[in-house]
C-alpha cells in the first residue's frame, strides 16, 4: 500500500498514538498520585511544581489529566471493543444466514437502536448502578446495534460473492467462512467505524459524568473532572480548561483519524456519517 498523502491522517494518527501512549504510561509519567490531596496548595494556577495547577482539593491537575486519559480511554476502548465483538458478530451472522435469523437479530437491534443514546445509557446505568465498569457496559450496549447494522450491509454482499460460494462448495464450515473470508474483508469498515465510535464514546462518557451517573469520584476521568470543575470556573479555571481541552483533543484525534481513514481506505464509504 502506498503511503497516503493526507496530512490529516497523519495528524490524527499522531494525536491518537500520543494520547494512547500517555494513557498507558500514566502511572509512570504522572508526577503525583492523582488522588493525593494537598489542601494547603489548592486551586493553584499553573506553575512549578504543579504544571497544570491544582484543583479544589489540592490535587495535581496534570497527574489527574494523565490518569483521566487512562480511565476515559479504557472505558471507551472497552465499550467499543465489546460492541464490535457482539454487534459485529450479530451483523455478520444475520447477513450470512439471512431469513429468520436475520430478521430476528436485526429487529432486536432496531429496538436498541430506537433509544436515544444518552437515555438508553441512563437506563442501563440506573439498573446496574453507577460504577466505572457499568459505564463501559452501558456505552457498549448502546453501540451494539450500530456495529451490527453497519457490518450487515457489506457482509450481505460478501456472503453472495464468488469466493464465499466457492468456499462453501469446498466444505469450509460456516464459522470458518465467516472468520476466514468475510470478516477480513470488512477490516476497513471496522477500522473506520471503531475510530469514529471511540471518539463519540469519549463524549458520551463525559456527558454521563456531567449528569452524575458516569465514572464516580474520586476516580479521575476526563468527563468527571470537567463536570466537577465547572462550578469553580470563575475562581479557578485551570482544571476545567485542561480537562476540557483533553476531552476535545482525545475525541478530535479519533474522529480525525477515522475520517481520514475513511477517505484513504474506501472512498465509497464517504458520506455515511
Amino acid at each position, binding site marked *: 500500500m502506498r503511503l497516503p498523502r493526507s496530512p490529516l491522517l497523519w495528524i490524527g494518527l499522531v494525536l491518537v498514538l500520543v494520547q494512547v501512549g500517555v494513557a498507558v504510561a500514566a502511572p509512570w509519567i504522572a508526577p503525583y498520585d492523582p*488522588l*493525593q*490531596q494537598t*489542601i*494547603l496548595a*489548592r486551586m493553584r494556577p499553573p506553575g512549578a511544581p504543579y504544571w497544570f495547577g491544582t484543583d*479544589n*482539593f*489540592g490535587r495535581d491537575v496534570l497527574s489527574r489529566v494523565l490518569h483521566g486519559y487512562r480511565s476515559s480511554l479504557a472505558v471507551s476502548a472497552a465499550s467499543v471493543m465489546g460492541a464490535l465483538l457482539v454487534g459485529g458478530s450479530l451483523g455478520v451472522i444475520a447477513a450470512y444466514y439471512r431469513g429468520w435469523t436475520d430478521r430476528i437479530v436485526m429487529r432486536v437491534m432496531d429496538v436498541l437502536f430506537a433509544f436515544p443514546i444518552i437515555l438508553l445509557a441512563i437506563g442501563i446505568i*440506573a439498573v446496574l*448502578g*453507577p460504577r466505572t465498569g457499568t459505564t463501559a457496559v452501558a456505552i457498549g450496549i448502546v453501540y451494539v446495534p450500530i456495529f451490527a447494522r453497519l457490518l450487515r450491509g457489506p457482509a450481505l454482499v460478501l456472503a453472495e460473492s464468488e469466493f464465499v460460494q466457492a468456499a462453501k462448495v469446498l466444505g469450509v464450515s460456516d464459522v470458518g467462512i465467516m472468520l476466514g473470508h468475510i470478516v477480513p474483508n470488512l477490516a476497513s469498515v471496522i477500522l473506520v467505524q471503531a475510530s469514529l465510535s471511540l471518539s463519540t464514546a469519549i463524549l458520551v462518557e463525559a456527558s454521563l459524568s456531567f449528569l*452524575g*451517573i458516569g465514572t*464516580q*469520584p*474520586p476516580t479521575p476521568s476526563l468527563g468527571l473532572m470537567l463536570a466537577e470543575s*465547572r*462550578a*469553580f*470556573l*470563575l*475562581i479557578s479555571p485551570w482544571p476545567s480548561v485542561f480537562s476540557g481541552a483533553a476531552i476535545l483533543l482525545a475525541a478530535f484525534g479519533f474522529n480525525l483519524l477515522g475520517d481520514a481513514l475513511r477517505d484513504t481506505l474506501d472512498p465509497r464509504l464517504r458520506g455515511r456519517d
Partner: protein
Amino acid sequence: MFLRSLRTAAAAASLAVLLMGSASAQTLEIATDASPSGLDPHLATAFATILINGNIYEGLTAIDTDLRTVPALATEWTVTDEGKTYTFKLRPNVAFHNGKVMTSADVAASVRRVVNPQTGSPLASRFVVIDTVETPDAGTVVLRLKEPAAPLLSQLASLAVLPAEPGVDLGRQTVGTGPFRLTQWVPDTFLMLEKHAAYWEAGLPKLGALKFNIVPDATARQVGLAGGTYHLIPVVEPAIAQTLQGRPGVQVQNTQDLAYTLIGINTTKPPFDNPAVREAINTAVDRSQIVQAVLFGRGEPGGPLSPGLKDWAVPTSEFPCYRPDAAKARQLLQGAGVTLPLKVTMNVIGSLPLAVESSQVVQAQMNQAGFEVTLNVQEQGRFIQDWRASNFEVFASLNGGGVDPDDYLYRTFRTGGSTNVFKYSDPQLDALLDRARSTADMGQRQALYRQAQQALACRGPIAHLTYSTLFAAHRQNVEGFTVMPTRSTRSLRSASLR
C-alpha cells in the same frame, strides 16, 4: 406633641400603603436547585419542600432569626401542671387560603393528623408525648402531655396548621394560613406563590408573588443571578458564594447553618461495633482541612450539636478525638485487634455535592490512618433505601439540624429512635436523653446534654464533620430578606423589591 407624632405615624402608614400598592404586583424570581417531590407539610420534610412550604404554612409558634421561639398562630401560651399542660390562645381572624377562618378545631385536627400512625408523618416522634388535645372554645387549644417535654414549643413551629377538612389533595395542592398561597406548580419548572390577601399580619406580605424557579445547574443559577434574571438564590454553595461575592448588583448573606456533614457508622457491623474503631475514624479525620477544601474556609468543625446552637453546643476543643492524629488512629485500630489496612466501603449520597466532596477528603485522610476506604457514590433513591435498611458499613451524608437538642439527639441516638439507623444502643445515654426530655429547667438540661455530647462525640455512631456557613445571594434591590440557620425563608413575608 403626642398628636403630631401620631399624625406623622398615620402619614407614614398611608405612605407605606401607597408604596405597598405599587409593590404588590411585583414577583420575586427565586432560583432553587431541586423540585419538591410532594407538598404535604406533615409528610414531606426534605429541604426542597420546606423551602416552599415555609411561605404557605404556619405553626402555633415560629422560630426567628436568632433561633428564639416566637408567637405565630398562637398569640400567647401558659404552661401549667408542672410542664404537662400547655394552653394556647389562638390569633383571632386568621384566614386559610380557602377563605375559612382558623379555629381550635383545625389546630386539634392537625395535631391528631401528625401523631396518627396511619399518616406516617416523620414529625410524629416529636409529638408522641402529646396525650390529649382539648378545645374548650374556638380560640383556645389545650395540649395535655404524658410527661413534661421541654422542646415542645420550638417543635410546634414545624407542625403546620391545616384546616380540619382540607378538601384538597395535600401532596399536590396546599391550603395554609401563610403569607403566600400556591397558585401554580409545573413540576421541574416552577412553583408560583401569590400573595394571600387576607393574611393576618397587616401590611404583609409586601411582595405580590414568589416564583420558585427550579434550576438544577449551579452555573446557571449563578449566572442567572449575576445577570439579573433571578432575584434570590436561597441556598448557595460555598464555592459559588465566593464567585458571587463582590459582583455588581449582588449581595451575599451568610449565617451559621444547622445542617452538617457526617460519617454514619453501622454499629452492628464488626469491627464498627467496637467503640475504639469509631474513635479511630474520628481521630483520623482532620475537620479543619474539610473546612478549607470543601467549604472554602467558610464553616467550622462541629460536634453532635451545631455551634449555631450557642446555648447547647459543647466546644469541640473539649473532644480529645478532634485533634487529628493518623498514628493514634492506627494504634486504636491495632488495639482493637484489627488487621491493617481495614477495608471499608463508604456509601455516599450522590445528589448532595457537599457530601460527595467531603467524602473524598475523608477518604484520603482515613487512608493515611490504616483504613482502606472505597467510595460508593449512590443515586439518591438507592442511598436512602440502604440507609433505611441499615444496609451500610459507613456512609457520608448531610443532615438538617433542629433548634432544640432533643429533636436531633433523641431520634438519632436513643435505642430504637426513629432515625437510629446505626442500631446504636447505650443504656446510659438513653437515660440521659430521657431525663433531659422531661426536664424543664434550662440549666439542668444543659448539663445533661453536655454529658450526652461528650459520650457521643468520639465513640458514638456518627463522626460529625463540619457545619458550614450558609450562604444566600440576592440582587441588591431585594430588601428585608434574612438568611436563617434553619434554611427557613419565612423572612420573605416582609421582603420587598426596590
